């Protein structure tokens, strides 16, 4: 739950099972369409802000980041389906972020519109909040989860870490077991 730190075995809230299938179907349809899919749970304005936050958490550098991987589409679908219980925390969290932004950067209009250094500074200010932890968890799940959920486009997350989703591998698997056979 959002008020607890997320560890490897501590996962998201309870979820109606049918919603997962709905999310899959949604993602499959989106994948077939050449148009960017419309958002379901988030408004376009909210999506822009969340995408900018996710893009600071997993930035674009010499490899794709959260933005290119379509993490925002994963998050929107999660909030529309299996993680809709956390939707309210997004509303609250964005409101709090707005308030902190206007006090830190008077005259600014949005998080997405800030310079990168300003975005990082603002995120550091909310690093200990439930909202930050929730967005971080969703961003990571969207970046590294199965592409059928709408994120991890072109397997960007898996390519980053050297993971391959295959049904078959053969030994040697890694450097040390290969070395031991030489």
């Amino acid at each position, binding site marked *: 739950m959002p008020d607890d730190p997320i560890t*490897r075995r501590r996962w998201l809230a309870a979820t109606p099972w049918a919603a997962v299938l709905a999310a899959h179907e949604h993602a499959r349809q989106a994948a077939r369409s050449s148009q960017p899919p419309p958002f379901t749970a988030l408004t376009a304005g909210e999506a822009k802000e969340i995408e900018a936050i996710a893009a600071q958490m997993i930035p674009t550098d010499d490899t794709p*980041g959260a933005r290119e991987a379509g993490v925002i589409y994963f998050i929107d679908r999660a909030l529309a389906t299996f993680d809709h219980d956390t939707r309210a925390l997004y509303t609250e969290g964005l409101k709090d972020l707005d308030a902190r932004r206007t006090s830190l950067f008077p005259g600014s209009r949005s998080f997405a519109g800030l310079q990168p250094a300003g975005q990082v500074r603002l995120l550091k200010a909310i690093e200990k909040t439930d909202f930050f932890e929730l967005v971080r968890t969703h961003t990571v799940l969207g970046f590294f989860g*199965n592409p059928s959920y709408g994120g991890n486009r072109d397997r960007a*997350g898996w390519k980053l870490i*050297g993971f391959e989703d*295959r*049904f078959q591998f053969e030994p040697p*698997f*890694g450097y040390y*077991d290969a070395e031991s056979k030489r």
Partner: protein
Amino acid sequence: MKQYRPDEEVDFLIIGAGASGGIMAKELSTAGFSVVVLEQGPYLREKDFEHDEIKNTVLSGMTNHPARQPQTYRASESDSAKIPGQKFLQYGRQVGGGSVHFTANYWRLWESDFQQKSKWGGVPGAALADWPITYADLEPYYTKAEQELGVSGLAGANPFEAWRSKPYPLPPLPVKSSGVLFERATRKLGLHPFPTPMAILSQPYRGRGACLHCGFCEYFGCEVRAKSSTLATVIPVAERSGRCEIRPDSYTRKIELASNGRVTGAVYFDANRREVVQRAKSVIVCANGSETPRLLLMSKSSQFPQGLANRNGLVGRYLMVDAGYEAHGIFEHPLNEFKSVQATRVIHDFYEPDPKRGFYGGGGIDARFDFYPAGFALAGLPPDAPRWGHEWKAMVGRNFTRTMSLLAHATCLARDENSISLDPNVKDPWGLPAMRVTFAFHPDDVRNMQFLLARQMEILEAAGAQKAWPDTSDDSLLPHNHLLGTCRMGDDPNTSVVDRHHRTHDVPNLFLVDGSSLVTACCQPTCTIQALAYRAADYIAQQARQNAI
């Protein structure tokens, strides 16, 4: 598959189609008895298994679900129980049960495991007891389980291993980089590594193909039936007998009792939440160490106001779980641990409790990797690493293929207070009382886990880890997967729930065969649970033939 009408009195009603229930179903149906198996979870087939981390880990795809199978938790009986932020006890919830999604560690007990009370004379604050049976009683059934289900391992490679009547039917699975590093390090330290015995096929066996090393074992079902789950092995045999019906999505709420003190069947909710009564001559509960006591406690009657077969109040008591921390290390070159089975090398050097350590406890340590990509990115980096941004991204990118873990599989003492009971307030979506868990580790368990963790860190250092760290957060131990001891086996009806043949002391035609029977917690229990099931099935079939149930 054979189908029975609910009003047809079958010979055996088995509740739970998991690691033990699948074996009971096969043994009793092929022995000529009519059998109905009620399974609360769905009947998933190999085509339903996916490499989908979110579904299987985040969304409890193959396990009890926190919303539909709610649990409450408290550390002590004096606390009020609350719904925890994290699932506390976890069990497999489909035909095949936990044997479908388990890691497939398959360790026998040692001979000494059966006489810990005699050896130690008791531990203050713990209900340590001897088993009513010995290793010799169980050995033929350990062998039967290994041979019939298909287990890969190397007999004699573990110098501490108990005697065995046959070697493993299959050679060990190929060693991974974690196993090579672990083997080098432990030998350097004078320890005795050996290939992890796994219920996964290293070669084709009895019509099933060998493991293809896809890496999705723990939390996942095997698409190619190389994991020796009851779903892939004995359940199809039971169905082919023409005498066994597996009924999935059938959630038992009460075992029925007649005025003569014998059970007559059970009431369950079918997939459409209609109540159905299945009649049977005998009932065998194989619902796991948490759901078995819960069902007995829900089956109250005027004869058993505290719950069925619970005259002495011990049903649900002495809950024991898996214990043991994990330590992680980063290495210079890629290990690619995401490939193949989770664990390939293990040591039992610290398995036997040793009075010189100053506390009770012991356990095995294995080399493994049980992260999937998102789980690794969330929690696989050292505690001092950044948690987001460029540097974090670079570290996740570099470390995923270079990390391995050492996991301790430690003893857990039975405490009086640790129990499964019915929550007085929280109900599940069927209106039944939620499972309430009362649990805290015995102080010796904690000292033992810390002792083993120090050994894990020494091994990682000896293996040449560039960086190593222990994961000792309370949450790191959750959820617990081995749910044991809650309907303890024993000869004395005052101090146990079932006798040495798994028959309840209070009800002659009611048997409990699963982790709830275990007297001590033994690091890796599945092999023992399944050997007990084979042994119980032999006895029950023989008694039924003699009209002695």
